[in-house]
């Protein structure tokens, strides 16, 4: 898989955007695009590990919705006793991380120990979380208490040195993920597991544990993403996180990770996420086409981006 391919696609998109609208390269727009990429991005980093180790997770979108719903319920419930302040927010964050981790472990357990096909397990849990959210929200929307939301909002909208928090967190996740994947034992073992389970097993790699860890990690990253998501919208409903799973998987694959496992790269995933976000952003910058056709443009660009990789690979 080419190193240049996805980068070229990204650069082309940026040039296209800049030509179409002078504000495209403005700080405000760049911040927007990066910050909103953070949710899918953080999840996609976790997905990179899952896919590299030969797995798949379709449940992340509804898991995010479920975690967000839990987080909101817990924070609202704790508000009377804790009052608006840092403790309640920390409690919420802890809830998100723990809930995400547990959800990920559940997927991983069913896949590695009960040995059910990952596609089925996560399709099942996708349905389960989605409908639990609907049920928790009684068919409507769960909202964070308004004062609390005002207090929590800066976690999405502020930052340090002019860089928004989601961007900082996303960057951290990417750096840690990249190190884990390419510089740590864990990444190697994921690749070995995905490449040939038996060989990995024979080489003393605990295949089940490696797989389980990838799902747990993905779950926890869903929790992290949710921590960034809740202050942005302050609510969760059945429509939260719909299709995030497809977007995350698409980003991973656009970035050059192999769907059947055995090879993955985190930085590629980041580029995949940015490509997907930019497509949406660029479609909003102009009104070239009927909004009905947005989906078609997206589809075409995704395919083209991957073709571009092939070409760059063939040459390079």
């Amino acid at each position, binding site marked *: 898989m080419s190193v240049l391919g996805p980068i070229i696609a990204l650069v082309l998109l940026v040039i296209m955007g800049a030509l179409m609208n002078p504000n495209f390269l403005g700080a405000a727009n760049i911040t927007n695009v990066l910050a909103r990429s953070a949710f899918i991005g953080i999840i996609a980093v976790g997905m990179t590990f899952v896919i590299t180790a030969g797995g798949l997770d379709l449940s992340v979108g509804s898991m995010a919705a479920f975690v967000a719903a839990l987080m909101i319920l817990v924070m609202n419930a704790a508000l009377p006793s804790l009052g608006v302040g840092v403790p309640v927010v920390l409690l919420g964050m802890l809830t998100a991380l723990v809930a995400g981790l547990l959800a990920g472990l559940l997927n991983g357990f069913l896949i590695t120990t009960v040995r059910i096909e990952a596609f089925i397990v996560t399709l099942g849990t996708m349905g389960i979380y989605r409908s639990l959210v609907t049920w928790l929200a009684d068919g409507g929307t769960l909202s964070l208490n308004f004062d609390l939301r005002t207090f929590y909002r800066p976690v999405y909208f502020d930052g340090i040195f002019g860089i928004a928090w989601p961007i900082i967190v996303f960057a951290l996740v990417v750096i840690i993920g990249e190190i884990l994947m390419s510089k740590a*034992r864990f990444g190697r*073992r994921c690749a070995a597991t995905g490449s040939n389970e038996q060989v990995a097993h024979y080489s003393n790699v605990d295949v089940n544990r490696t797989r389980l860890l990838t799902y747990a990690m993905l779950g926890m990253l869903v929790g992290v993403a949710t921590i960034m998501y809740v202050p942005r919208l302050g609510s969760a409903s059945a429509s939260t996180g719909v299709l995030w799973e497809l977007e995350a998987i698409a980003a991973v694959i656009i970035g050059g990770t192999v769907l059947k496992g055995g090879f993955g790269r985190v930085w590629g995933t980041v580029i995949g996420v940015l490509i997907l976000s930019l497509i949406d952003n660029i479609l909003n910058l102009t009104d070239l086409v009927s909004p009905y056709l947005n989906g078609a443009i997206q589809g075409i660009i995704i395919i083209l981006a991957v073709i571009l990789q092939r070409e760059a690979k063939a040459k390079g």
Partner: protein
Amino acid sequence: MTGQPVLSMRDVHKNFGPIEVLHGVDLDLHAGEVLALIGENGAGKSTTMKCLAGYQPPSSGRILLDGAEVTFGSLHDGEEAGIVLIHQEFNLAEQLTVEQNIFLGREVLKRGLLDKAEMRRRSRDYLARVKCTVDPDTPVSRLSNSDKQMVEIAKALSRDARVLIMDEPTAVLTNAEASILFDQVRALRDAGTAILFTSHKLGEVKDIADRVTIMRDGAVVHSGPTSEMTEDDMATAMVGRDVSDLYPAKPGVPPDAPVLLKVEGLDVPGFASDLSFELRQGEILGFAGLIGSGRTEAMEGLCGLRPAQADRIEIDGQAIAIRSPSDALDRGLCYLTEDRKIRGLLLDKGMRVNLTLQALEKFGGMLIDRQAEEAALTRAIDEFDIRAGRRDVRVGNLSGGNQQKLLLAKVMQSEPRILIADEPTRGIDIGTKQQIYAYLRKLTHEGLAIIVVSSEMQEIIGLADRVAVMRRGRIAGMLDAGQITEDTIVRHAMGVGADTSGRAA
């Protein structure tokens, strides 16, 4: 032999489902000694080795380490005990690099992160010990079979084993490479490592092993010092009959025999160029050369399996273009791959499906004639002496040699008129080898023409009517019946003209 054995097995039985493949095997490995385990295909050698190393639990019986009974709860325990097994089939993750494979499961860390520089350095060291020059950063999928084997050996060396078990390590190696390996084996033995290995090349066994244990049908039939047996004795003890005349007589090809295949200026980009040769009816043409000389790729290019061009290819005097394997097959030109695991057999499927895959048209029309398939399987099992526990066994569970026999049977289903057999006897026991050689010769009597690509010098010399020697993608020499000697072949292969006697450049 002195002292207690490092590792031994007592009365080990092993069942796969209802079938017992080991019937009470006893074996002792001593420090500083090389033990060879030999036997026919399917005798249970690989299974014995896996039980010893903890890869498969015995169904009953005991494994003793330093005299104390052990049960390996996991592979890890076996490794902890210092037992390392090199598998008969490659045990490398294809997408990972050489270095990643060598250190898989025991990566070297520095401050919690991988110490890649160190691992690369050590990989290079280990590879250097077996004189292998591949770059540690190359993905294993891009290596040739012999390099893969060397990587396996390097991986085993990196483990600092007390007991080193090698399952047919030399099957994919040339003699030169095998002797590099044996230098290492001797060094390890002298350092006190206990070594167990199998091989179907009895010469090697004679050379390197201190003792030899012979298995037949899942039981040990003989065990003793190598010095007390000749190669013929070993063969006879394994097979139960005399196999001294391994190669069939060469009746010679009449000069007026029609040319079945004529190749002019065949180019396989990156691997071979400007190959020209003729193949006559009733002839066996050997292709010799060093590993990496491009024989395999040339043949694959010829058969439409990879991109290639040629000035002219004639079959039966008719010029033809071969762009896909089916173009070749339609003309009766068929290639037997050297790599049974990756290119030859569907390991997850049964024998019947594998047997008929290449020649499906011959079994019914649109719908497959199941009966005809079964009949063909019965015939193949009989004709090639395929020993499978059950007819519906997963092919991946067949012993290595039996897989090879099935592969040969599979290729013959398409009834080729020109057969290109690449390393046809890899992993095959000596008794069956004799049968296969006889079979190939019989095919020439029936009017076929055969190309045999082989890295086993004796096989080429014993079998071929003429020999083409390849070097760096070109035909360096074409030897007629009278010229086929080990010396001339080696000299051509090394790039030294047949009439000069200088050293290789």
